[in-house]
């Protein structure tokens, strides 16, 4: 019996769907650590399932079945499916439990059979991926030169060139020769050797790359995997993946390792232990389309002190550099649903019919140069007045805020070194249901506010007050009020002023993606 036997009452709460977040956390931790409790749990649920099967058959139904000939059953629909079920049920080894699910099974399989025959093309194996583009690729499908642009489940060998594939779930995959991989399904690839990079949209979450040493499960992100004869490497460029070390026979051999933005590990095939390594930013080909990368590349080139791409993983708010990472605030303990952003990796969703209540950074970057820039992409669902995009102002502390004023116009506020607050506002209410690029800058003389690359307000202004450790809030003020009603993405903070030309460049590099995002 388990040492954690006192947690067994939580099984019933879990099995009823009535477990609280705290109870789930306690149960999860105990199940993770205690194999005996896991066994108890598995057996408890096993009994639960068997009871359900038994109860599905009433005494009357059982009696009726026992006196019913198989021919009578098949006569119910006259289809071969029912007949086959009846024949299967006529096996002498059958227990009465086997009968319990026949009704439900027949219904399910009749639907399946209908779908099967209604669409003859379903009889052929469905493609799991499409070839989007290639560069001098020589690809073999199950040992033969590939034909067409559809990839079905099977074994592939890329002897030369580059491949860009789109899996049916929307996942973009780039493969570099020489590589050997199996397309297992639309959500799973086994990489035997070579390099593969994946870009996973929200609808593709759960996409898994399997190697000899690990199973890499994605949570909506961008990552690369390299498999060599002695080791596998996993590099995460944005978001989070879960790496499950495994032996060559497929058995899980160690604890799951969560890799976040800018982290990488190598797993030696012999030791099966993940070891942290440096991120290889230049080694992998991660897109054939450079425009997609332009915005983050442009931001990084401008040297922000912190860049929040709003990848939300396990209630964490990823940041470059990671030491300024934050947390997601939720109203009822539930993580807000994944929200589509301008670029891959999602965005911070606040209100908009979700439990999102913004984000908080307890250790933000220091701002001490007297100059400041904040750039962000924002999407407004409803005209919430006074909604905050980002701020570190709380009573007499903090030095900037960006949000809406009481009219729903964009408003930027800074505190100068005399302690005075100064605000400027845009010229019109922020449009709803569209991504906007917003920037505020202070150079020590001028305070400027830009919307979609255009200067919409400016005022004379002395240098910005220093901020060393003022908590940074996204989508809310420090009191949990003035919530933004929509999404916030790609927030970059700079301790210098971006010029007009740099603001324009940033906007233009985001323009294409913003127009195509919903």
């Amino acid at each position, binding site marked *: 019996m388990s040492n954690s036997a006192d947690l067994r*009452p939580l099984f*019933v709460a*879990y*099995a009823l*769907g009535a*477990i*609280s*977040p705290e109870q*789930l956390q306690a149960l*999860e931790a105990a*199940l*993770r650590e205690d194999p005996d409790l*896991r*066994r108890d749990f*598995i*057996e408890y*649920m*096993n*009994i*639960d*399932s*068997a*009871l359900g*099967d*038994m*109860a*599905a058959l*009433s005494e009357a139904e059982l009696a009726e079945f026992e006196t019913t000939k198989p021919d009578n059953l098949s006569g119910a629909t006259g289809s*071969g*499916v029912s007949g*086959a079920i009846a*024949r*299967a049920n006529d*096996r002498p080894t059958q*227990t*009465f*439990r*086997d009968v319990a*699910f*026949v009704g439900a099974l027949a219904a*399910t*399989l009749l*639907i*399946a*059979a209908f779908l099967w025959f209604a669409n003859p093309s379903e*009889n052929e*194996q469905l493609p799991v991926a499409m070839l989007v583009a290639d560069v001098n690729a020589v690809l073999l499908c199950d040992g033969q030169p590939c034909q067409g642009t559809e990839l079905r489940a099977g074994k592939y060998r890329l002897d030369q060139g580059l491949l860009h594939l789109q899996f049916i779930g929307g996942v973009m995959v780039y493969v570099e020769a020489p590589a050997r991989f199996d397309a297992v*399904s639309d*959500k*799973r690839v086994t990489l035997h050797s070579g390099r593969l990079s994946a870009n996973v949209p929200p609808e593709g*979450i*759960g996409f898994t790359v399997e190697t000899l040493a690990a199973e890499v*499960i994605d949570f909506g992100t961008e990552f690369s995997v390299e498999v060599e004869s002695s080791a596998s490497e996993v590099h995460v460029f944005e978001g989070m993946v*879960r790496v*499950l070390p495994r032996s060559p026979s497929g058995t*899980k051999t160690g*604890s*799951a390792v969560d890799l976040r933005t800018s982290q990488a590990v190598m797993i030696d095939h012999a030791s099966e232990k993940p070891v942290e390594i440096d991120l290889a930013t230049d080694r992998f080909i991660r897109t054939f389309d450079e425009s997609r990368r332009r915005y983050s590349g442009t931001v990084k080139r401008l040297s922000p002190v912190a860049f929040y791409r709003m990848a939300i993983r396990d209630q964490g708010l990823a940041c470059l550099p990671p030491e300024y990472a934050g947390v997601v605030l939720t109203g009822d303990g*539930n993580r807000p*649903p994944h929200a589509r952003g301008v670029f891959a990796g999602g965005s911070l969703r606040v209100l908009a019919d979700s439990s999102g209540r913004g984000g908080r950074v307890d250790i933000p970057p220091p701002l001490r140069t007297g100059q400041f820039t904040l750039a962000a992409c924002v999407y407004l669902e409803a005209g919430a007045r006074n909604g905050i995009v980002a701020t570190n102002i709380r009573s007499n502390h903090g030095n900037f805020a960006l949000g809406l004023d009481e009219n729903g116009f964009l408003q930027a506020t800074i505190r100068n070194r005399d302690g005075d607050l100064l605000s400027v506002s845009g010229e019109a209410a922020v449009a709803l249901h569209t991504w906007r690029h917003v920037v505020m800058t202070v150079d020590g003389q001028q305070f400027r506010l830009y919307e979609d690359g255009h200067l919409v307000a400016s005022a004379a202004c002395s240098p910005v007050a220093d901020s060393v450790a003022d908590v940074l809030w996204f989508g809310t003020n420090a009191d949990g009020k003035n919530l933004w009603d929509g999404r916030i993405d790609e927030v970059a903070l700079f301790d210098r002023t971006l010029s007009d030309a740099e603001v324009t460049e940033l906007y233009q590099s985001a323009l294409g993606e913003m127009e195509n995002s919903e």
Partner: protein
Amino acid sequence: MGPDNGQIHEQFLTLFTANEPAIRAYVRRLVPTRHDAADVMQGVSLVLWKKFRELDQPSDFRKWSFGVARFETLAWLRDKARDRLVLADDVLQAVAHESEQDEERLSAQRDALEGCLGKLPKEQRTVILAAYAPEAAIQDVAKQSGRTVAAFYQWLHRMRLRLLDCTRRTLQAEGLA
């Protein structure tokens, strides 16, 4: 030329029918509630059917179907994890893995349950099965058994533990524990 659709149908149905309780129980061990299991099973059975031609050996059906069920269930749970309380992926992976390893004993346990249930007084057995019946309203079952809903859940929990212990003893007697 492979077997025709009718033959494939029959082969699939035979295998699926024989293995469905095990697959359902496997899914049940991974999802929070019985309703979730029913929800997932709808999708699993369709995927098994669609992918049936990928199965090399009929003798591998159970192992193969567990693999499909595992993937479908975990994908379903990841989807639900955004707005539901479900166990973390690594815990579920461990449960799935150990479930597969232990399936022979778990299957015997499900069989042993029949006998254990039969040892209960008929009144208790009837109430348990009523609580597990499809579309059962727990409030009604609790009321008919003369208990409050909270007390009824406690009673049901204790009965499940009793049945669990009984099945373990049965398996032990059969040398399967």
